[in-house]
């Protein structure tokens, strides 16, 4: 899959998110951050979407959002039963695939 195809796939999948926020409270990083939404599965998906749409750049907060995810899939359990049945962790992990090369190369802040 090319980078462009990966971006399109991610945008399409994340676009299915309805912002119901059921995945927020079950996220361990949300729970242990005294409830900061940016550090929840929902927050990560929205941040990734903004990165893909070019409205955000790959800087500290996005890097933290993508890589502080535990990939524990608690969000997926609730999204499967009450939400849009998104593979949230897989989407975040693919987001990492998209940015990992840039991180390894240590290039400057940029739009993806």
């Amino acid at each position, binding site marked *: 899959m090319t980078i462009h195809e990966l971006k399109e796939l991610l945008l399409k999948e994340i676009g299915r998110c309805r912002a*119901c926020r059921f995945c927020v409270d*079950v996220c361990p990083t949300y729970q242990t951050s005294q409830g900061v939404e*940016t550090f929840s599965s929902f927050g990560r998906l929205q941040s990734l979407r903004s990165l893909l749409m070019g409205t955000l750049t790959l800087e500290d907060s996005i890097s933290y959002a993508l890589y502080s995810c535990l990939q524990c899939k608690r969000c997926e359990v609730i999204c499967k039963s009450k939400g849009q049945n998104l593979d949230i962790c897989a989407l975040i992990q693919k987001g990492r695939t998209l940015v990992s090369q840039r991180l390894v190369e240590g290039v400057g802040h940029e739009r993806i």
Partner: protein
Amino acid sequence: MEMKLKELAADLARFTGEEHVFTDRPAAMVYARDVMPYDLEDYNIPYAVVRPGDATEISAILRYANEKQLPVHIHGSGTSLVGLARPKTNGIILDTGRLQAIHVFPERGYFEAGAGTHLAKIRKALAPHHAMLPIFPGSELVATLGGAVAVNTSAHAVDAALGKPGDYVLGLEVVLPTGEILQTGTESPRKPAGIEATKFLVGSEGLLCILTKIRMRLVPMPQSIPIVAYYSKTEDILGTVMGMYRQGIFPPMFFEYLDEKAAKVGFEAVGLSTPAGAVAMMSVHSWSMAGAEAQASEFLAFLKTQPIMEAKIVEDKEEWEKIWSSRAEAGNYVYRLGYTFGSEITPRVDKLKEAYQDAKSVVLNLKSYKNPEFYSFGHIGAPTIHAYAFIPTKDIPNDVKRAIVKEMREKTEEINIRYGGCGGEWGLTAQRISFLKKRYDPAYYELLVKIKNVVDPNNILNRGNLEGWV
């Protein structure tokens, strides 16, 4: 207004500590996002998100906001279905998420909880005390007590059986838009009579204050008996509801329906055989099991006078769980397989059938999108019809989504007006202001504006919601 972010961050940090102030764009965009299907615009995005820990910090923030003429948008869970949560203009978002403590006082007959506490957490905390939280939204995993009381919604419950959350609110701690901290109400389980401020502030939709702490009476957990009734068509369920009110029968605490299409997809999803038509499901409650059984038996006798195909008390717990979950599955179907645009129609009960037909006609004749499918389900005993325009694709341009939301809203508002209703679950500001203006005399809206101007002279809190900005 040119905003110096570093200066703003430093100022806010003086009130809450640096770790509770976020000026990064990701945080701003995450918090600003609500359930509306169209994207955020620049004017929706706040300069900062601040997370105060108590009323004192909120007071300081609001005083500062007044000084700087800086709009403050209150964030509970962000799950409002009529656009209350999305900021309408650049300002700051005040997240109530740190206002979380729950204290149960069985010897006093009440509990207190922070406005930012998720309802599911409160329900769990009350269970060991054999007490019920009288608020039932589908979003309770994330919906906050502050949000539910600010909108005064019992959500899925039948008001005639349970009432609204405000009926159980004994007192509040609030911060006024100008920064004063008020304690209202009583510590007795008996609510005050007369011109007591709790009444003005419950249901004030974040326009007149920020709720920080809520005291609610402990409601003993009732016993309940589930009933399911199968009908050949939705109209017959509506007739049952009309009959129930006409005959003065005490309604079940929950009285839900799925129309023919929703029943089919919902039942199939849970592995039950496809019903022949529409389905109604009820939960009859009483304070004792003997009472619940007697009440259920009487309600069943009433149902048997109605044009049902079958009605029964559901003895098998597993069967009931499936039947009850079919509602959520019907929702999953319409929300997952395409875009769905909802409505909340709560008409005069003797006009239920007309309201339903009108809602169906609105959906099937939408101008902003050709030939959507009509689905409906909801808390019909309340009575609320959620009529949905279901479009089986995710490929809809942003401007078309906006147009559909607008058309559905305006046309279903007309149904509420035509049949004497006023919504019942979702609140009356933001996207509902156009309805409010049409529904009532101009003096009504002017009164709300006057009250707002007196209490919030600089229009700091939730600016744009009373104006009806979207």
